[in-house]
């Protein structure tokens, strides 16, 4: 039995290492060649910062990067607020309405993204041409669209936290005279912060990654995805190597900080809760 376990461990390590190599090899090559003068990745060249210098001058690529982050952060924040409030609402709905809302929130998740993208484009046409509303493709519309496609994921991130809530706390809030809204903000929401943070992270990543919905609704605005896509089909400035490297390193650092900060904060919260409200600790078990 022990030999079998050891064999599985060795093979497991081998498989894991090979997978990681395959997965990260392309990214590692891009990072390496971001410091090389070689025209193509795999070619020979000398050490240089030229692509980083070029990146500062490449206004179109910088614009696309800024747009990507603005859309990601703004739509992520709106989605987090809307998603959290909706998760609370859906959680307390009665069975029939609850399943209708759950199904509705899954439509964009399940649907082919192209169809969602087409839908947003047609909606924008309808609002502008038929209802004469001041709606058009571009930043604002992209923020709306990205919010709508990421809200379901925030709901998914927050709902499990809701089911771990101690119902007595909300009851107590109501008994002490707080209305629904006040109970939501002062009792329920503070307990959902962790779910909200992971919901935001998820929404932000998905928005950053999005191509199809953005492509259909962007108008003249570019994001990293659409800019690189157009570049790969025509000609792409090698500064993209520098951008890839910066983004990869930045995200790595953010994630590490996030994890350190997150685990410490979590430890603090547990301690505090143990001290202040023994009821909720008992309820958690």
């Amino acid at each position, binding site marked *: 039995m022990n030999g079998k376990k050891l064999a*599985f461990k060795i093979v*497991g390590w081998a*498989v*894991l290492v090979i997978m990681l190599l395959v*997965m990260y090899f*392309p*990214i590692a*090559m*891009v990072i390496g060649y971001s410091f090389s003068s070689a025209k*193509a*990745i*795999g070619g020979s060249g000398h050490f240089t910062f030229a692509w980083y210098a070029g990146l500062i001058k490449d206004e179109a690529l910088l614009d696309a990067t800024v747009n990507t982050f603005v859309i990601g952060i703004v739509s992520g924040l709106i989605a987090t607020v*809307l*998603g959290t*409030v*909706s998760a*609370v*609402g*859906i*959680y*307390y709905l*009665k069975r029939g*309405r609850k399943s209708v*809302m759950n199904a*509705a*929130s899954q*439509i*964009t998740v*399940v649907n*082919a*993204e*192209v*169809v969602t993208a*087409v*839908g*947003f*484009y*047609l*909606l924008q046409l*309808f609002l502008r041409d038929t209802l004469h509303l001041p709606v058009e493709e571009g930043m604002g519309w992209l923020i709306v669209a990205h919010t709508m496609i990421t809200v379901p994921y925030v709901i998914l991130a927050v709902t499990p936290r809701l089911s771990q809530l101690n119902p007595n706390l*909300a*009851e107590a809030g*109501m008994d002490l005279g707080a209305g*629904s809204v006040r109970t939501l903000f002062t009792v329920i929401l503070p307990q959902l912060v962790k779910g909200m943070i992971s919901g935001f992270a998820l929404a932000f990543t998905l928005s*950053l*990654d999005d*191509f*199809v919905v953005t*492509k*259909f609704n962007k108008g003249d605005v570019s994001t*990293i*995805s*659409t800019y*690189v896509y157009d570049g*790969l*089909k025509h000609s*792409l400035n090698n500064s993209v190597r520098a951008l890839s490297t910066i*983004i990869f390193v930045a*995200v790595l650092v953010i*994630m590490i900080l996030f994890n350190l900060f997150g685990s410490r904060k979590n430890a603090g919260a547990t301690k505090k809760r143990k001290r202040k409200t023994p009821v909720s600790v008992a309820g958690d078990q």
Partner: protein
Amino acid sequence: MRKRAVGKGIFALPYAAVCVIFVVFPLLLVVAYAFRAPEGGFSLSTLADVFTNPSNYISLLRTIGIALLATAICLLLAYPIAFILAASPFNKIAVLALLFVIPMWMNFMLRMFALQSILSMMGIANTFAAAIIGLVYDFFPFMLLPIYTSLVNLDRSYSEAADDLGAGAVTTFLRTTLPLSVPGILSGITMVFMPCFSAYAVTDVLGNSDTTLIGRKIAVLFDLQEWEAGSALSLVLLVLVMLTMLIGTLLQRRNKAKGSASAVPNAGGRLL
């Protein structure tokens, strides 16, 4: 208690309203445009064109074919890997983070740029194989995750019982482990097969004219402001997605029913 529960349900209202405007209504618009003639008025000809114009249905069939191929390769690669990882005594969260979360950190198009660089280095960029490699590279984690989760959470007592009763390793795997991981496989298949329909950017950047997916065709039609033709293709895609979902649900349900019949109550359903 009930009265209060209804009170808090009010918070679902804003989302319900937003859903109707931004999710349900756009789908109705897609249907409306699909049945519209470019000059206005009701028409079936745009929709009929999807099935009579060879360039349309060939593109659709090709998309289905490529999606099936990429899904099959993902499954064949992911199952053994998930099996080995699940059987080895690794920290579950660390494995998931390394294989699933970290690749997601980077923008998908930048990952495609990296992959394209490597494939051109190998001299196989802009081929059919390159397009398939791209899809597999992009979607592999989505196949691995559900299968790995279903295998890790598997109730080992069935395999142990089979083992005790003298079944060989192969029989044990085929009669207990594999059937119990079917929900994971099914969910992996839907998580790869359906997104492939929309992943035209991958095959565009890495493949050639033989790998143009239906999504690309719709994008071109919308660029040309041929909204009716684009919507007709989208509607067909929508119906295909619904059919796939339906088949998936039926298979899951049948699997569950079969599971309880053979005295393995809900061991699978619980995993998802």
